[in-house]
């Protein structure tokens, strides 16, 4: 199997399977070899599920031969972040205290993907406990730091580190990640892949490790926005086992969303979107806007509602995370965690005052209303996904700005530099969907990324915009070098 296959989109792989150019067993065997061989080099793999994968692939081949087609994911190999329960297979949450944990049920997302005919290759590495106890370094998992496939001396992002690295390196056709505040978008940005953070409640979290009940979401990470749509259609929808689920998602025929392939979209460009960003991020964003202008009307300088999004996320994750991991904290087992900040972060989170938590939860109501008012005028607003590229392995986040060969220019003396719009914490607090796609490269050969943020349940529109962008660019087709041994 050639590298062309490993870096094919889900849609193209499905075509190859149906044309019988390759079988699911052949595809799965090749991906298993590649994931098993290269995954550990990138800190991306926890458990290879070889037997299960081959069983699911054989079944897919049998069913497709009998023309029992389960849809676009039938026979397609994927990886799951290791916070999703898989019956009889370790589910470690990336954390030493849970390294031997084996659950006796499947997460709803795993069940839905099985019903869609997808093939589970393995459980992918993640930041321990999805980063909820305040990790301060990329080396925050018992599998070591996730490494960007574009330059393994740099982080693949967190907390869905393995999902980002494995998808970016062509070790899986797609992956499932989770986001509480940035854990899908950041690894997509640092690993050069496309990703979708769904509206809160669109995808069941049953069987997923809980970090923060009112913020946690599960979503796809894939080569293209179109693939994200195919995966989302398989995993979205109501689930009686997750009372927060609401709404459903049907991925329209490609190009047919919202008025067809010739529709012009209306996009807002956020004010100060590239403030404090690396020069390469800024340049790539401006080039992206030129591409978008070909099929969208852009309104520049759109004000993003100003609220203390980051601090509110911090208070809410502290309170809910300390409750979710109370037993771990009270038992003194956070000392077994890898990152120094995680060893102690639970104790400070434990002391979050109830009134502070409730104040933050009240703030979300007004934040949600202000964001809805701003977003109602657009199909999406755009901004760089992150203002930087991946951070170096070994770098402490709390030691100040990342060292960069291309530092951002200093403001004039006495001038105060405005803050960029806090799209990631804001979007998460309001439960809004976002799609991100690669849009170029920055220092050290590391990718940069473009983000589309939209109204709740506007995934089809966001995907249509991102798909049009990817039809006009080739960043998503670029391939990283083979990871060094």
């Amino acid at each position, binding site marked *: 199997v050639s590298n062309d296959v490993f870096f094919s989109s889900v849609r193209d792989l499905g075509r190859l399977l149906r044309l019988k150019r390759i079988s699911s067993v052949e595809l799965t065997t090749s991906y298993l070899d590649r994931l098993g061989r290269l995954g550990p080099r990138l800190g991306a793999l926890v458990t290879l599920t070889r037997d299960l994968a081959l069983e699911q692939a054989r079944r897919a081949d049998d069913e497709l031969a009998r023309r029992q087609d389960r849809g676009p994911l039938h026979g397609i190999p994927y990886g799951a972040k290791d916070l999703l329960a898989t019956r009889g297979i370790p589910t470690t949450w990336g954390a030493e205290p849970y390294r031997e944990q084996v659950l006796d049920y499947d997460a709803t997302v795993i069940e839905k993907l099985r019903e869609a005919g997808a093939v589970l290759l393995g459980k992918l590495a993640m930041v321990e406990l999805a980063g909820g106890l305040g990790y301060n370094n990329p080396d925050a998992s018992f599998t070591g730091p996730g490494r960007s496939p574009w330059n393994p001396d740099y982080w693949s992002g967190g*907390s869905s580190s393995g999902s980002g690295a494995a998808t970016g390196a062509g070790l899986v056709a797609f992956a499932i990640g989770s986001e509480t505040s940035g854990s899908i978008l950041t690894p997509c940005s640092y690993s050069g892949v496309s990703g979708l953070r769904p509206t809160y409640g669109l995808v069941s979290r049953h069987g997923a490790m809980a970090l923060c009940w*009112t913020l946690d979401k599960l979503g796809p990470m894939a080569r293209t926005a179109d693939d994200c749509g195919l995966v989302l259609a398989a995993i979205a929808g109501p689930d009686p086992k997750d009372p927060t689920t609401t709404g459903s998602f049907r991925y329209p025929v490609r190009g047919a969303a919202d008025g067809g392939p010739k529709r012009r979209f209306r996009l807002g460009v956020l004010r100060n979107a590239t403030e404090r960003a690396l020069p390469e991020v800024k340049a790539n964003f401006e080039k992206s806007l030129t591409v978008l202008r070909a099929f969208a009307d852009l309104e520049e300088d759109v004000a993003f509602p100003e609220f203390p999004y980051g*601090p509110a996320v911090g208070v809410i994750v502290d309170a809910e995370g300390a409750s979710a991991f109370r037993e771990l904290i009270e038992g003194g087992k956070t000392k077994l965690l890898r990152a120094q900040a995680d060893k102690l972060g639970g104790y400070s989170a434990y002391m979050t005052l109830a009134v*502070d938590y*409730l104040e933050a939860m009240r703030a979300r109501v007004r934040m949600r209303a202000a964001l809805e008012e701003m977003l109602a005028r657009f199909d999406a607003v755009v901004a760089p996904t992150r203002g930087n590229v991946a951070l170096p392995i070994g770098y402490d*986040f709390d030691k100040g700005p990342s060292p960069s060969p291309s530092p951002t220019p200093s403001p004039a003396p006495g001038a105060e530099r405005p803050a960029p719009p806090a799209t990631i914490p804001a979007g998460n607090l309001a439960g809004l969907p976002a799609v991100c796609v690669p849009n170029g490269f920055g220092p050290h050969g590391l990718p940069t990324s473009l983000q589309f943020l939209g109204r709740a349940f506007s995934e089809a529109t966001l995907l249509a915009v991102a798909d049009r962008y990817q039809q006009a660019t080739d960043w998503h087709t670029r391939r990283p070098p083979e990871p060094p041994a």
Partner: protein
Amino acid sequence: MRTTGRRRFLKSLGVAPLLPAAALAPQVAPPAPSPTPSPSPSPGAPGAMAWALTEAVRHRFGAQLTVEELAEVAKGIEANLLAASRVAERMRHGNADEPVTRFQAHRPPEPAAPPPPPKRSRGRRGRR
């Protein structure tokens, strides 16, 4: 006002005496918990409120933590308090402004409607 209220509250719990600040000299402040790294509040040295809460941590978990670790916990608490105060200062709420979480009582399923009484059917024979 907030800080004074908190102090009074903690005093009422009897969590004094506080750890001596000199024994717990701050070094590097851990960031506010965040699933992905983001600029976190940069607190200065832990204030009285942070030390008070740290004393509560020591009271509950002292056997698990060294003095140096408690100093780190104090800095984490200071960062968290700073985050909370930033939210509170920027977002003033009215009395009835509810948080987004809403408790709902469990609504039991409607009891099944009793089956309709059997109709007295008179067969043709009966009518005859």
